[in-house]
């Protein structure tokens, strides 16, 4: 019989309209000692306002350096079932689509070998299997592999790439995010499973500038869909929106950040100065039946975002203003450029230095030179406003001599 813990604090979190994680832990605890001890230890954390997990250790599966987060209780005598409580990150399928059978297979494996607790999903995208013992890691890994699943990234490696729903169910997807995500994941299997980088490297694929996967804030390598040609307009649908009561002048034209739209209220037609359009998505978001991205579509490739640790948060910034990732050759070129970036960063980067911080340290100009990318005005919000330029006179002189 598992111990029965009194959990007056956690019981409070079973109340209220939002689905309760405490109910989930209790469901799992009915027939799982680990989940039951999680409940006991968590109640104690609520009493003491302190966590009770120790700093991770190095545990994993043979041949991999990532995918498992080592975790131990600091109260193993009191909660022996969670003395080990390691987590496996399992690489999710692109777009988080599943069949019920695939999900049940994962459930069956985790029922046999783990706590029965999961996260669907972790913030990076993986299926998170929360809590098992060291000796169970290998069996879980191999049974998952037999079911078609592999581990995701952790530590200083390529982290599990993720993407928005893309062309599967969104009319705004400017490239095939799910395919790009899958292809990249398969290409970087070695780098994903065997940490050899200065620090983590994340890919996120967003199909349009609405960026439903927070690519620009959360990925070192952000691919955000865009288009180069004209916005597609269905003027009959524009009129239908007007007839339906939409205030096109106030809600669409005046909200445009580029001020590139004109609305003829009499004819109920919309005109766009496409050269000035910034591809922000607002008008399309408001009038999805009337407006659509163009057909010359691809992605903006931005680099370098991260959370604050250590030198402060960064957003990704433009490296390549347009790349058609659906085109095989351009996709290869994109991968080559990424390889080049990773090489330079691996060579020169310091331990625990994300690529965005690395660029801050060495200078974007030098980074571009090292990876062989020409500077372009699209890369900056504005040119430098200080006069401290590192002129390289020797090179200029050499050029003049030549």
């Amino acid at each position, binding site marked *: 019989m598992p111990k029965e813990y009194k959990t007056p*604090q956690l019981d409070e*979190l079973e109340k*209220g309209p939002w*689905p309760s*994680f*405490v*109910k989930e832990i209790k*469901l*799992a605890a009915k027939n799982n000692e680990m989940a039951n001890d*999680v409940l006991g230890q*968590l109640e104690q*954390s*609520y009493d*003491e*306002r*302190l*966590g009770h997990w120790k*700093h991770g250790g190095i545990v994993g599966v*043979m041949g991999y350096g990532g995918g498992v987060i080592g*975790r131990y209780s600091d109260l193993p005598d009191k909660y022996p079932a969670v003395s080990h*409580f390691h987590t496996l990150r399992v690489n999710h399928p692109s*777009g*988080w*689509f*599943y069949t*019920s*059978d*695939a999900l049940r297979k*994962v*459930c069956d494996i985790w029922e046999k070998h783990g706590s029965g*607790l999961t996260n669907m*999903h972790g913030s990076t995208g993986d299926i998170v299997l929360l809590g098992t013992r060291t000796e169970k890691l290998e069996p879980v890994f191999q049974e998952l592999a037999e079911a078609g699943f*592999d581990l995701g990234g952790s530590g200083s490696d390529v982290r*599990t790439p993720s993407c*928005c729903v893309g*062309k*599967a*169910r*969104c*009319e705004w997807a400017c490239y095939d995010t*799910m395919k790009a995500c*899958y292809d990249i994941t398969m290409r970087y*299997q070695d780098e994903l*499973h065997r940490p050899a980088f200065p620090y983590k490297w994340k890919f996120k694929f967003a199909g349009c*500038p609405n*960026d*439903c996967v*927070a*690519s*620009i*804030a959360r990925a070192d390598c952000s691919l955000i869909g865009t288009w180069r040609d004209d916005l597609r307009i269905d003027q009959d649908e524009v009129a239908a929106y007007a007839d339906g009561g939409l205030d096109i002048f106030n809600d669409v034209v005046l*909200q445009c950040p580029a001020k590139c739209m004109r609305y003829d209220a009499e004819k109920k037609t919309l005109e766009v100065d496409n050269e000035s359009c910034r*591809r*922000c*998505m607002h008008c399309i978001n408001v009038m999805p039946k009337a407006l659509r991205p163009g057909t010359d579509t691809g992605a903006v490739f931005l680099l370098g975002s991260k*959370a*604050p*640790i250590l*030198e402060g948060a960064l*957003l990704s910034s433009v490296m390549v203003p347009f790349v058609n990732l659906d085109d095989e050759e351009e996709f290869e070129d994109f991968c080559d450029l990424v390889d080049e970036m990773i090489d330079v960063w691996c060579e020169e980067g310091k331990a625990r230095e994300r690529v965005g911080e690395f660029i801050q340290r060495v200078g974007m100009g030098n980074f571009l030179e090292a990876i062989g990318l020409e500077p372009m005005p699209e890369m900056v919000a504005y040119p430098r406003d200080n006069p401290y330029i590192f002129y390289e006179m020797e090179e200029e002189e050499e050029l003049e001599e030549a």
Partner: protein
Amino acid sequence: MAETKPRITDIGPPDYRQFLPPVIEKNYGQWKYHEILEPGVMVHVAERGDKVYTVRVASPRLLSLDTIRFYADVADRYCGGHLRFTSRHNVEFMTTDADNVPEIRKEVEERGHLVGGIGNSITSMVHTQGWVHCHSAATDASGIVKAVMDDLAEHFTAMDLPAKCRIALACCLNMCGAVHCSDIAILGIHRKPPRIEHDKLDKICEIPLVSSSCPTAAIRPTTVNGTKSVDVIEEDCMFCANCFTVCPALPIADAEADGVSIWVGGKVSNARTQPRFSKLAIPYITNNPPRWPEVTSAVKNIVDVWRQDARKFERIGDWIERIGWPRFFKKTGIEFGKEHIDDYTHAGLSFQRTAQITHVDWD
């Protein structure tokens, strides 16, 4: 001799194509438009006229196998055995038959899982592990999320806001939840320097690595009772806990000092305005489990003031941009102090460097 199976490695994730519902496989890349039919329900219409209805369902993210199997059963009953999850931990049931929509709604609501989170609403909170699984947490994650969303559930199930509102929580500055671009971010913080476990530091940590991990160079090698260790200049510590990340002998969590901070006005979408970071609204609220009432009321207050004051389409950051930060603090009643003024690298960029000012009566 026992037969050994060959070990399978580096197979990568399952190919997503095997998991797509037939209507999606058939219309992949051929979607024409979509409409939100009611809160939490939308229809996507393909060029050839096919339709797929999506019901978006809240989840606590931390799921038991019972609940995942429940989702699988619902998918079998109404969705041909297919389902998906969103980037913010919701579950989506997709069906070609509009009659299935109320049935799906009924089943999930009976289990206590709300339908909503589409359009101008508050969708599920991206969050981290907290005391459920993390060693570096300054607060719990799931508990605050549950309490905050209980308070805001009415905005998940309705589309009654000026724009969408993304709330996220990270239980320490490492930000596994990368909350730094959220409309409202709840961030766990430490406020005391690490305690130095001199007796074991040299055994389990690399001292040069520990020293160099400190962004303010407050950690220096030293010798204590003949044992190599480190010294922390306490007044230079900004409680980032990066030293603890590289060295377990520098624990920083403290029951009395730890708590959460609240940040506002960030976004990742490019629609109308550019992506931007969240800015500090409330520097510190003490941890008050199990329901963190001071945190939930602070978040609700910001949402309520924004909801009543913002113009159509204005995300929280857009609204603040228009009315100015002085009026944000005035209207929300949040106190402004020294902590709000940046003093890290390039801090001056955030100072008000113009005479364009909105005058606020502070009396």
